[in-house]
């Protein structure tokens, strides 16, 4: 196990486990209620290293196993830990590690015409390669019964949506089963990271999911900062809180606007869309970009808004908060709207826990999970606020949680504007970057925990960067929560989950 020894990073504990006993170890942790955070595979030359990361309070506990490249098999974890299902499909497809006993090993992310024996995350595969098409038809889960038929909803969907495909089995009005087939937006993100040096890689992290620019770039930067033991100046910590909460605000207003759109509440939709637009315009003042591009860099942040811009932001947001609270109060009294949300796409607490849900989706199913509190980063340990949770688990509860988070975000922004100290914006990078160091980085995006695992290679390049967005975790739950609802509630269900495809397909 000596090749696996790591430098210690606070808050991470690695434990070597023989492949044969990996499943038993995972089963123990799953039954004790530990949440699966992520599974990572890495091509280590003559072997493939598997990491299974669990959430143990303030600590991330990582099981590591080595699978020989000559015979890349291991006993599948999905039968004892359902939350591992998509990770194992991804590992099989991108790295060629076969989980034996996995119930569903259909391709998940690669294009339908991709040859089955080419694994893009192996080091022997060059990013610039584009293998010839091979026939690999997509298959779907058969659902049979009297009057049952399937609707392929996507990849080109009705409306302005990101591309994905749902194969909906129905007998008329009720949704019986949804088989989700993502991957149409697979861009090869993780391989692309391996071509870049650290500083331009932040720009790539910003474009993994363009509506969670701050969360993704911050999670990436924090992974590198933790690996290098960099200490971030206080001004940068507070600016990260400020921008992350602006990002949460515009995304939550977007979700409310889309729900109003689904319910044909056109005035309400226009009002909330206008609130979102006001925040995007403020974002330009702060960062030069409506989606807050170019804020984070490794070691801190790139720029500091002038005092004039900050005082105008304080004024504008105060005004916006007053107006938005009035509209939200009215929305919650609009029966024709809330009738569509109550009881829709119910996600029971037990199911959410079993599939390791994150973000507002988890919090609305009674799981008190928010990495701003669980493992504080930036300046969140100096902030005064409360995690919003609710027990009901339906679309209405997800809306309520988001509404509370809007209030909290306004408060957090006010605190950041108050506390923002003078001083440097970034800690300098060390002259030489040691090879082989690795760490996790995380951030609570508007959709939940974004998790990165970054390992440095030679010459300051990235050897492996594993990205796990909240959407990758929560989409499988969406397909379960929608079953049993009527087709006309599909939009409410989808928008109340508020997920993206870009972060899932990578």
């Amino acid at each position, binding site marked *: 196990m000596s090749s696996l020894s790591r430098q210690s990073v606070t808050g991470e504990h690695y434990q070597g486990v023989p492949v044969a006993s990996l499943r038993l170890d995972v089963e123990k942790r799953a039954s004790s209620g530990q949440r699966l955070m992520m599974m990572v595979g890495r091509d280590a030359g003559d072997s493939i290293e598997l990491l299974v990361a669990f959430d143990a309070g303030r600590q991330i506990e990582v099981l590591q196993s080595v699978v020989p490249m000559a015979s890349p098999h291991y006993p599948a974890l999905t039968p004892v830990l359902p939350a591992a299902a998509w990770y194992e499909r991804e590992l099989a497809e991108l790295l060629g590690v076969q989980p034996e006993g996995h119930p569903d090993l259909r391709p998940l992310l*690669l*294009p339908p*015409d991709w040859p089955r024996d080419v694994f893009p995350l192996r080091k022997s*595969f060059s*990013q610039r*390669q*584009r*293998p010839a098409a091979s026939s690999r038809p997509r298959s779907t889960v058969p659902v049979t019964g009297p009057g049952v038929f399937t609707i392929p909803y996507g*990849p*080109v969907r*009705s*409306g*302005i*949506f*990101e*591309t994905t495909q749902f194969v909906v089995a129905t007998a008329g009005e009720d949704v019986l089963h949804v088989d989700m087939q993502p991957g*149409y*937006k*697979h*861009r*090869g993100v993780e*391989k*692309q990271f391996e071509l870049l040096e650290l500083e*331009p890689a932040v*720009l*790539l992290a910003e*474009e993994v*999911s*363009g*509506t969670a*620019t701050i969360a993704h770039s911050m999670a990436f930067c924090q992974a590198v900062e933790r690996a290098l033991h960099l200490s971030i100046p206080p001004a940068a910590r507070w600016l990260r809180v400020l921008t992350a909460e602006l990002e949460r605000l515009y995304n939550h207003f*977007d979700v409310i*606007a889309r729900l109003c759109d689904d319910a044909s*509440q056109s*005035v*309400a939709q*226009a*009002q909330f*869309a*206008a609130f*979102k*637009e006001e925040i*995007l315009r403020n974002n*330009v*003042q702060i*960062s*030069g*970009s*409506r*989606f807050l*591009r*170019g804020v984070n860099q490794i070691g801190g942040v790139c720029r500091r808004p002038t005092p004039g811009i900050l005082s105008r932001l304080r004024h504008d947001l105060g005004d916006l908060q007053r107006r938005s609270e*009035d*509209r939200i109060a*009215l929305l919650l009294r*609009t029966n024709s709207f809330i009738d569509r949300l109550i009881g829709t796409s119910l996600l029971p607490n037990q199911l959410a826990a079993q599939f390791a849900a994150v973000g507002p989706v988890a919090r609305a199913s009674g799981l008190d999970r928010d990495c701003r509190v669980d493992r504080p980063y930036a300046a969140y340990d100096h902030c005064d606020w409360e995690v919003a949770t609710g027990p009901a688990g339906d679309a209405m509860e997800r809306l309520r949680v988001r509404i509370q988070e809007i209030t909290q975000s306004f408060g957090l922004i006010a605190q950041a504007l108050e506390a923002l100290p003078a001083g440097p914006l970034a800690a300098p990078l060390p002259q030489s970057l040691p090879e082989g160091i690795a760490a996790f980085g995380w951030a609570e995006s508007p959709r939940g925990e974004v998790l990165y695992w970054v390992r440095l290679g030679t010459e300051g390049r990235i050897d492996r960067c594993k990205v796990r967005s909240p959407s990758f975790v929560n989409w499988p739950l969406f397909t379960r929560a929608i079953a049993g609802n009527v087709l006309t509630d599909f939009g409410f269900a989808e928008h109340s989950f508020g997920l*993206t*495809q*870009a*972060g899932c397909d990578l």
Partner: protein
Amino acid sequence: MFGWIWRGIRTGVLTTHYPDRPDSLAPAFRGRPTIDQARCHDGACDAAVAICPTQALQSTPQGLRLDLGRCIQCGLCAEVCPQAIRMTPDFELAVQQQCDLVLNVDQIPDEEQVVPVARQALAQRVKDLRRSVHIRHVDAGSDGAVEQEIYALTNPFYDIHRLGLFFTPAPRHADVLLVTGVMTRAMARPLRETYAAMTQPKLVVAAGTAACSGGIYRGSYAVLDGVAAVLPVDVFIPGTPPSPLSLIYGLLLGLGRVAQRVPSQPSEPRENDIVVNPMSEPEGIAHSSVAVGEEDRL
């Protein structure tokens, strides 16, 4: 019910008058970089070329060359060489030919200079669909932000319905195919099929730097480096993501309602520019012959 009506009226009119009256984004907005190489000291421009993450800025014997189709507006070049390179809030970047995206720096026009539309063929094609146009959006591998900007086109600030532009879910009813994203390998076939389902005359708009060139994902194994690899593109709208005003400008440029501001370069007409006037063909036959023709060409 009355609560909403009252609040709607009280909010008043928020809508921009663009393009009838000029509008602008905040001065801090990073749009097009302008480069004045004469003011560069100590070879700082070479450092700017080296730092560009998408190789949008290149050094040629004729001087610096900027490919707007690759520029992701990160502004790193302007930080490295602030004397010569400046990020401007200019958002009217859309062009009709891919080669127009590549600027030799000395060709960048004055702010006031307006260049006539180069391609008569396109103007001919779209002359019947100027005032009521239906748009079908297809995502071919975006980062998700550009969808939010397209959705923003219907918000009270931009309200593109006032321009006679509407979104439609049905490709059969669509005049414009608005494509976003890097053009992933998996989306090539669905996109071709959507295009084939549209009737003539039709317009393809590539929205975003990613759709113009693949952007930061250019060269990736799963990416075909922009929409032009799959469909004949009529308008390219750079931007990461393009702002709603950039999108309005690009859509109107495609419809011949505004003029192109980035200088046009002489080029050979493309194969797909020669289109039989669909109005002269009998109904029905036009559909099937178009569909077959599309398949052959693609």
